């Protein structure tokens, strides 16, 4: 719970006040925290691409949105990221559980893991890669950066960082 709490605390410190998720077991603790947090909006959504649209609307309404998802969700959302969030320069934080990184027990997750950073790089999305607890301290500044540069940004949380966060 310590890691998940630290991530949410830092996102909130960075100004994020609107959260969506497409669930992942590595995000489960964060979802629990958000479901009980009266200060911010939280909802699950069925699909990441749709979540990008909801985040865009939330930004237009002056919220600072975050969508939590597995890295597979980036694959589901490329057109929405480029022709909506980037076209209109909308700051949105992607909080990504980085499935398929070392420690991952499910071999099939390795495919998207191999290309996730390449996709984000191709999309010119700033990345913060968190593999240890210490790096989580950068999340609040990194989130604020999304607003300054009016762009989506991606925070990648490695499997091994999240897996023992009981």
């Amino acid at each position: 719970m310590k890691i998940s709490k630290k991530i949410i605390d830092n996102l909130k410190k960075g100004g994020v006040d609107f959260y969506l998720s497409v669930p992942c077991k590595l995000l489960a603790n964060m979802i629990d925290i958000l479901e009980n947090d009266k200060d911010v909006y939280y909802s699950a959504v069925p699909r990441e691409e749709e979540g990008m649209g909801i985040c865009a609307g939330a930004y237009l309404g002056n919220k600072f949105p975050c969508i939590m998802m597995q890295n597979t969700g980036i694959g589901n959302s490329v057109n929405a990221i480029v022709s909506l969030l980037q076209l209109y320069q909308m700051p949105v934080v992607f909080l990504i559980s980085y499935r398929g990184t070392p420690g991952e027990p499910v071999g099939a997750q390795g495919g998207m893991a191999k290309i996730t950073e390449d996709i984000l790089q191709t999309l010119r999305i700033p990345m913060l890669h968190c593999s240890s607890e210490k790096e989580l301290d950068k999340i609040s500044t990194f989130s604020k950066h999304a607003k300054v540069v009016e762009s989506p940004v991606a925070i990648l949380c490695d499997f091994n960082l999240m897996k023992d966060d009981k």
Partner: protein
Amino acid sequence: MNRFDLLNKVQNILKDNLVICNIGLPSQELYKISDQPNFFYMLGSMGLSSSIGLGLSLSQNKHVISIDGDGSVLMNMNTLATIGNRAPSNYTLLIIDNGSYGSTGDQRTFTDEKTSLKDVALGAGCKNVVECSGEETVNELNKAIDDKDNSYVIISKINSGNVKIDPIPLNPITIRDRFRKFIGKVKYL
């Protein structure tokens, strides 16, 4: 009645609300009929008008009308479940259902065959789902906006067909900023 006729009929209602308008001909036709700062024209991301409007209605109190099409809703049907479970009362989804992909050359969609978006929306959990003719749409839209306790999905069944029209000349940041200024969220313009 085709889409252009319908947009002409509802333009006075749209003027008083926040409008998210679907990509392609719907936005181009609306721009030609009456350009307003409170109209957000989609220049990409087909399928997401309903979702953008939902996020906007959850974030502020003004009434939001998402103008969508049957082809676009078919592309993003999962969001009907999100709307059915989460849409606040300041949200109306207006689906202009002409049974065709108008912007790409009027190819038939599945709503011209077996699919009923009304049944899909009801099954997804949307409570107030109205299917009506183009002529009845003004009345149904007014009812949806006047009801301060419920969100609505209105499916307006019209004929296919488009008018000859140019792309929207506004750049995306202009569309974004004047829209946010209208809501009162942009101070620097």
